[in-house]
């Protein structure tokens, strides 16, 4: 056995350091650029920048776009449906965390 030197691959946190262009976001989510534009006009995603070429997607855009793509594909939701579902899911997530805290409260015997 020889000693192998491990090179640890450093990534960048998309939500902190990466501002994706529309092309990058389309590739990362396997979604046509038209669909990205439709999501933006529906308010599912809110990029910075004026025109589609200048758009920069930051924050949780990648996560939202991935979820939107899955929901549209798997459940055949339409655009307003996806926008509503994403907002509700976000709220549900918060409620679940709160519930988790309530259940974990140590005063229950």
């Amino acid at each position: 056995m020889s000693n192998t030197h491990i090179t640890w691959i450093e990534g960048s946190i998309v939500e902190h350091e990466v501002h994706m262009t529309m092309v990058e976001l389309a590739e990362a989510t396997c979604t046509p650029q038209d669909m990205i534009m439709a999501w933006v006009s529906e308010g599912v995603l809110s990029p910075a920048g004026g025109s589609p070429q200048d758009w920069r997607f930051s924050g949780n855009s990648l996560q939202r776009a991935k979820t939107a793509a899955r929901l549209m594909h798997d459940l055949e939701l339409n655009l307003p449906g996806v926008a509503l579902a994403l907002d509700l899911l976000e709220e549900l997530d918060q409620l679940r965390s709160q519930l988790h805290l309530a259940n974990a409260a140590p005063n229950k015997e």
Partner: protein
Amino acid sequence: MKFKDYYETLGVARTASPDEIKQAYRKLARKYHPDVSKEAGAEERFKEVGEAFAVLKDPEKRAAYDQMGSNWKSGQDFSPPPDWNSGGFTDGDFGGDQSDFFESLFCRGARAQAGRQSQPRSAKGQDQHAKIMIDLIDAYQGAKRTIGLSMPAYDDQGQLFMQERKLDVSIPQGIRAGQNLRLAGQAGPGFGGGPAGDLYLEIGIHPDPIYRIEGKDVFLDLPLSPWEAALGTTVNVPTPTGALLELTIPPGTPAGRKMRLKGKGIPSKEAGDLYVVPNIVLPSAETEAQKEAYRTLQGAFDFKPRSHLKG
């Protein structure tokens, strides 16, 4: 390989109409969708339901499946009949997540064909996604993980095949649940000199028994006795990294009043905060002396906790 009863999976009769099948699928898909349900095993169920629907919604595939007869029971050992020809099903509609059972019936032809598609002269490799789970302390301190992934690669003949690859990944301090780590150029190979695709790792954080995590902020329930809350005290509060912080509880602290320890949440450029949430715990009065203590308390106060309720 086990036989799968797709009708049973969707909970419909073998004679179900296409509409009934679609209805059953939609209902189950909404229930078990991994973005919607956090139930254990939901993702597994969702895949099974999706696989069943992929076959039963397509009249040709359904006919081929039905042709195998209804004598098969779910879970029975199965191999496709010798005269079975899967070559006709090549519509590439399958995400690649199907069971062996499904693949043996419908995917072999499609897979063999996929390598022969005409390719543009040069193209960027496909981006890939995977999910990894870390602990809360990893988000505080960073971590190193070796992950195994199945990745596409080209052989000498330019055919695409799947290859097991191990990646040593450094997980940066300050990453939060739901965030993605982009490893540039670590996914599918480019074609004809094109760049390799990017690998995206979605981060999940295991639920912690003590702390609740909300983005970059972390919450801790702090049990206090009634006299500690009423008179004030000093307590040692553990942080997720194991350090102890001395926290002064002011007299008259009500339950639920969050106390913020600035910058002690998940670190990052703008570090999160650690919130301590007091929780007042009542000791139960068991011995006569304890009961007497409560009675003394009662006598000392003119306390009307329900004064805001009418009647």
